[in-house]
């Protein structure tokens, strides 16, 4: 890379902190007493989570009839929420694994909580397929458990593929997250002042002392896990999309579903990372660690994936016309002009129109703008799943059975409650774990570069320029 002075970018980490400062700034978040705001926040979110568990209890007692389901619409908010949460759970592993393999060093400041967010989002997602079945008490029939009836799950069913895809994704993401945490947990252990902290962190840090051999093994393990996770990022949402694509309902039975869903998932996942990182950096004064440079790059990814999603929306219309299938054509025209047109246009506005603002550098660098847009994108992505699930089912093959679907109180309470669960877990995480990967952030400081000379800012890593 040329060493001309015009190309100097802002450093990834601002304020040129020393290694010791990074450790103390980030460790202190979990060591000192939590701010009052944290207690206020967690009491609200945990009440919402409790609301979800109450809703689930009533659901088990009464059955899925408490939701707004009616005869043509057998899948409603539960499936929408499942796909929504799995989608959000995409960014974490993308940031951790794919960006790691691509040597994108800017990932270091956001990967830890993006991974945590992934885990919590997948947990929220996993609640829904479990509770949406009519007889929750035998939901375990979906697992291949040996049994005296010699009955096995039906391996031709995409719903079963889901069980494996999401289960694997969760397991591997958890391992990846935990392995990445070990050096930082050891740092916290070494700083621990109370007996309990020492004991718990001591167990979690599995004897890490930062020796050369340990680092060598650690880096190899991390690389292998990144390699394992990479195909999973693409496979999970591809498999989720087959839930729809495999059945022959018009509007579902489409070959573009897997890539379309993956793009949408990355889109919504990054939007959620954006929302949370803006809050976290403000709340814990981490502006030097999660800088505008990080945020701008997330915005660029959202602009790209938003356009991919927009392309998918338009190609669906094209194929509906080009295939000459009257049912397919009807479904798409009905989406844009029929009883759920309001949902369709919310989706188009939030997912396709609004992200176009990120073409402008000024807007890409404005915190309020990106905060609002990131929330709007997730609204839009929720509506995308709403449009897919509900509009296809409510106006399906049989005009005589058509009906209008509207949610009940219990649909809404379960969904809002799942946000409560998600945020509660997230708040617990920012309270008890290092929210930024200290060891990795130190790795991207100029001092960590073997070619580093003090005062010489031109020797930045070559692929970090764009």
């Amino acid at each position, binding site marked *: 890379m040329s060493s001309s002075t015009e190309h100097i970018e802002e450093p990834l980490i601002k304020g040129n902190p020393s290694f010791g400062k990074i450790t103390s700034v980030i460790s202190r978040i979990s060591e000192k007493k939590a701010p009052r705001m944290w207690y206020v926040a967690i009491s609200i979110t945990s009440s919402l989570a409790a609301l979800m568990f109450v809703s689930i209890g009533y659901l088990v007692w009464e059955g899925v009839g408490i939701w707004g389901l009616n005869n043509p619409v057998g899948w409603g908010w539960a499936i929408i929420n499942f796909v929504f949460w799995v989608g959000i759970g995409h960014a974490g592993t993308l940031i951790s694994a794919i960006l790691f393999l691509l040597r994108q060093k800017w990932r270091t400041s956001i990967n830890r909580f993006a991974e945590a967010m992934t885990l919590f989002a997948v947990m929220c997602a996993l609640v829904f*397929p479990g509770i949406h079945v009519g007889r929750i008490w035998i939901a375990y029939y979906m697992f291949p458990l040996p049994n005296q009836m010699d*009955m096995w*799950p039906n391996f031709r069913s995409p719903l079963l593929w889901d069980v494996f895809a999401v289960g694997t994704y969760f397991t591997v993401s958890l391992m990846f997250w935990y392995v990445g945490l070990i050096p930082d947990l050891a740092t916290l252990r070494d700083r621990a002042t109370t007996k309990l902290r020492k004991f718990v962190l001591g167990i979690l840090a599995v004897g890490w002392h930062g020796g050369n051999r340990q680092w060598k093994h650690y880096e190899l393990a991390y690389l292998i896990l990144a390699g394992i996770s990479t195909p999973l990022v693409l496979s999970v949402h591809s498999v989720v999309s087959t839930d729809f694509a495999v059945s022959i309902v018009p509007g579902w039975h489409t070959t573009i579903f897997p890539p379309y869903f993956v793009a949408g998932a990355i889109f919504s996942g990054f939007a959620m990372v954006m929302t949370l990182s803006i809050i976290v950096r403000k709340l814990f004064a981490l502006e030097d660690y999660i800088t505008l440079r990080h945020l701008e790059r997330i915005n660029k990814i959202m602009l790209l994936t938003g356009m991919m999603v927009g392309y998918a929306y338009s190609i669906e219309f094209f194929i509906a016309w080009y295939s000459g299938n009257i049912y397919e054509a009807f479904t798409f025209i009905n989406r844009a002009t029929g009883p759920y047109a309001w949902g369709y246009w919310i989706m188009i506005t939030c997912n396709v129109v609004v992200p176009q603002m990120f073409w402008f550098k000024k807007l890409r660098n404005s915190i309020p703008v990106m905060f609002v847009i990131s929330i709007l994108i997730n609204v839009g992505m929720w509506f995308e799943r709403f449009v897919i699930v509900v509009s296809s089912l409510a106006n399906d093959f*049989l005009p005589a059975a058509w009906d209008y679907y509207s949610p009940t109180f219990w649909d809404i309470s379960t969904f809002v409650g799942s946000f409560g669960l998600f945020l509660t877990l997230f708040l617990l995480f920012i309270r008890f774990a290092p929210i930024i990967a200290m060891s990795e952030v130190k790795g991207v400081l100029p001092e960590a570069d073997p070619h580093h000379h003090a005062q010489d800012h031109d020797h930045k890593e070559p692929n970090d320029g764009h």
Partner: protein
Amino acid sequence: MKEDKPKIPRRDFLKTFTEKVPKLAMAISVLAAADFLTAQENGAYNPEEHNYGMGIDIHKCIGCGRCADACKNENDVPREHNFFRTWVERYVVPVEGEAIVDSPNGGIDGFPESKTEAEVLRTYFVPKLCNHCTNAPCVQVCPVGATFVSRDGVVLVDEGYCVGCRYCIQACPYGARYLHPEKHTADKCTFCYHRITKGLSPACVEVCPTSARIFGEVGLRSSPLRRFARANDTVVLKPWLNTKPKVYYAGADGEVR
């Protein structure tokens, strides 16, 4: 020494023996007889010998809805308006524009006069039910394998195994399934399996006053179904979906969905 063992007196032994053994023999023979009888009964019905289907003559259907009513009575289908194993649809085809299709309460209470202002070209009734597809899309998607095509060609749901995920309900292009509100499992037409395996015809066929429904074997030349198929031009619904349905309609035009 063997002398130490407690001895059963010979008299006692014989007494017990003559009392208990005949009782035991009797019990065994009763069980064996019951077994034999059930085997006999099962032997009378061999699913491999059958492949059931249904014919529907749209020209004959008068839309009385007795089939849907009889089905609800026979099969314990909830009386609410959203649950049907079979129902009757009315098609009102105007001279110009889209056909209007309705099915108020499945046709059980009859049909109110059509309110369309357009000039009506023709109207007719189409009874619907599970098409018992050979290549059933509902069977593929069931995650636990609770729904299956039986050896006699009937698509059935195992109520003990269905988890109620409703995937099959979405997957069916004929709208034949619903979630049973009390059992919490998927439910659908079984061709009255409990009746047909005894040689009776399904309830809807039994009550149809105009014989618009014809039940029988798909593969047997002498069956009423095959005779019906020979005498009429029949179609199946949505053949392009490659589901290979086994409900054959006579007199269905392109409007029938």
